[in-house]
């Protein structure tokens, strides 16, 4: 039933110690910064961050040279008694992306969270938590044991929650409580699953479990519980009640971390679980359900993003939609043999995660600069901002273009890979979802850019200085995301696609124009705000033709918003959590 077990990687590989360092260095930074306090907090962060980046790059190089996963046995105890750390191409790619985002955020935050001789609360907390998020994420990325992953997930939650309520306003406190409670429910479900798995197989090591696990009813219960718990922590629709207020309410640098990186932690554990621990268990139904939830997230998140008044909330809802995008790889990876194949679809999904991490962090950073410059972030009040804050708007635009999937961005490569997988497995409906998702993304990016680029009759007074370094950090990060298509992915992910061949030519042009035109239409139709393009006199005729459509679309948007209001109430969200757990269990049982 299961593929024959290859020899267990029961020895430490030569460069395995790098994995230990990738965890120990940030954690050491947390401890040192906490003890030293005062202005040393920043110095410690400044010392640790380049070091951590260097370690991530070294892991990348070591992995592409060795061609096999890096392994480290902690305390020299082999699993199942001991705990192993492992890094494959997926972990290495995510490690590098995490390091890059953390670096950019650190540069960006330097102005907001400057330290002085006497200790101030917010900078002290922020710098320590930044390092803590990093240490937790690295542990998640290289952890080879399900319980170690649990501790790391909790570490991540404990670092993320105070970031949400860093400025102490009542709304952010409420958001933080909601986030904490829901994340705790998620981790309890995950822990339930680990207890059952230990009872079944006497190990929690990922590689050992993947050899021993079978489609028994008990293991399916565990799989369903763990999956659902992790979905709650990832905020996949309909378990997203905590995400928009938490991500939009936090300070910009913290939002960049939360939206770009923190949700990827639990997402990565789901990938590990489904693709590595139990590729044979989920079956067709469960993968389709996961994809369907993703599709619903894309529609809900994008439509709600288009209806937001404020830029940061728009970006938060965009995160909701993009999380949905990440889950489309699960049905596409499911092939005729009944297993989740680690092929195109997995590579595409991971690339999407990397490119979303960089682009979304850059977007929040740009939005933060705009907020700091204008003193507000109402989208309809953005007219003329491109003239006074050109760099911030440019960073936002680049990040938006990268998210839209315009070549050569990582998202475009990811989309190609996923479309390829859809063709190969004959699941055309996911191709439709992918294209629609691209258009919807374009819609809200275009909406913001249209307002930001529109001319203003009033002159805009900036409320604060605009540090150039801050904008440069956002810009560089956005460019990273935009140029991900040029990165040689072959050694890390199995990317068979020749990524640099067709940047120009009619096919590429059509691929570019279709989502853009569709997106503009959707932006005009779905956004309830007066559109700067349409409201000018030249477009009067078009407006009259469009009006009935617009009204229908607005009604649809209102409906979505009302539905979201219900789903975002605690009882509804937690009931759907349990319902999903049972549904996943039932679908897996049927498949088994």
């Amino acid at each position: 039933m299961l593929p024959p077990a290859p020899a267990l990687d029961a020895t430490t590989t030569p460069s395995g110690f790098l994995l230990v360092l990738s965890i120990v260095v940030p954690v050491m930074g947390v401890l040192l910064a906490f003890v030293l306090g005062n202005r040393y907090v920043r110095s410690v962060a400044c010392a640790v961050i380049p070091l951590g980046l260097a370690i991530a790059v070294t892991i990348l190089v070591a992995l592409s040279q060795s061609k096999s996963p890096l392994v480290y046995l902690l305390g020299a105890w082999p699993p199942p008694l001991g705990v192993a750390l492992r890094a494959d191409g997926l972990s290495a790619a995510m490690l590098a992306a995490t390091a890059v985002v953390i670096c950019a955020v650190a540069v960006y935050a330097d102005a907001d969270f400057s330290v002085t001789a006497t200790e101030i609360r917010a900078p002290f907390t922020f710098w320590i938590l930044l390092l803590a998020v990093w240490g937790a994420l690295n542990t998640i990325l290289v952890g080879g044991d399900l319980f170690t992953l649990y501790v790391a997930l909790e570490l991540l939650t404990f670092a993320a929650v105070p970031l949400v309520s860093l400025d102490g306003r009542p709304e952010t406190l409420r958001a933080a409580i909601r986030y904490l409670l829901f994340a705790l429910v998620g981790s309890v479900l995950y822990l339930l699953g680990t207890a059952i798995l230990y009872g079944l197989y006497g190990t929690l090591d990922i590689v050992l479990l993947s050899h021993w696990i079978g489609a028994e009813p008990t293991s399916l219960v565990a799989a369903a519980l763990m999956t659902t718990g992790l979905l709650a922590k990832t905020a996949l629709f309909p378990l997203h009640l905590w995400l928009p207020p938490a991500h939009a309410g936090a300070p910009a640098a913290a939002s960049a971390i939360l939206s770009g990186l923190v949700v990827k932690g639990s997402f990565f554990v789901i990938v590990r679980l489904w693709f590595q621990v139990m590729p044979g268990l989920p079956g067709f139904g469960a993968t389709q359900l996961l994809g369907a939830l993703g599709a619903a997230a894309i529609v809900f998140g994008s439509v709600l993003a288009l209806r937001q008044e404020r830029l940061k909330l728009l970006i938060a809802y965009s995160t909701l939609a993009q999380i949905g995008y990440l889950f489309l790889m699960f049905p596409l990876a499911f092939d005729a043999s009944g297993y989740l194949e680690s092929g195109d679809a997995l590579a595409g999904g991971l690339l999407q995660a990397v490119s979303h991490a960089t682009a979304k962090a850059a977007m929040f950073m740009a939005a933060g600069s705009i907020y700091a410059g204008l003193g507000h972030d109402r989208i309809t009040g953005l007219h003329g901002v491109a003239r006074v804050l050109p760099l911030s708007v440019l960073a936002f635009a680049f990040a938006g273009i990268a998210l839209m999937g315009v070549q050569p961005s990582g998202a475009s490569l990811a989309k190609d890979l996923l479309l390829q997988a859809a063709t190969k497995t004959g699941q055309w409906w996911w191709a439709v979802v992918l294209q629609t998702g691209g258009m919807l993304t374009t819609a809200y990016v275009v909406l913001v850019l249209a307002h930001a680029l529109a001319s203003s009759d009033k002159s805009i007074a900036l409320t604060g200085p605009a540090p150039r370094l801050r904008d440069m950090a956002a810009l560089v990060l956005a460019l990273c995301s935009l140029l991900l298509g040029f990165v040689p992915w072959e050694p890390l992910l199995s990317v068979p696609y020749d990524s640099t061949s067709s940047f120009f030519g009619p096919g590429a042009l059509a691929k570019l124009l279709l989502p853009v035109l569709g997106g503009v239409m959707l932006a005009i139709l779905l956004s309830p705000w007066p559109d700067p393009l349409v409201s000018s006199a030249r477009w009067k005729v078009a407006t009259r033709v469009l009006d009935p459509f617009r009204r229908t679309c607005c009604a649809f948007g209102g409906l979505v918003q009302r539905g979201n209001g219900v789903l975002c109430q605690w009882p509804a969200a937690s009931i759907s959590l349990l319902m999903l757990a049972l549904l996943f269990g039932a679908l897996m049982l049927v498949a088994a």
Partner: protein
Amino acid sequence: MSGVTVFGLCAAAAVGLGFYGLITNPQPLRKIIAFNLLGSGVFLLFGVVGRRGAVAGTGNDPVPQALVITGVVVAFSATALAIALLLRLFQTTGSTKLSNRTSPGDGSDPAGG
């Protein structure tokens, strides 16, 4: 029915109880108590698993025991953090209401930059 099975069923029931309380109790502090109940059910499940794996010389498999001790510490820290958040919210607003007046997120004030 052996004692281990009894406690295994007890653990499952405690988990169910915890979920019910967590969903239906409107007060955040009660949700936190329900979470602790839920957590104790999960830990008991580990205990039952460990007890089943007992061999001569050890009454209970030490690995699940160690996992539970780690888990209890994490759950306690979570409780402390949640309560600190609640108390702070109470201090600033005089209410521990978790929902905003309109749907969450849409009605909140401008975010910090």
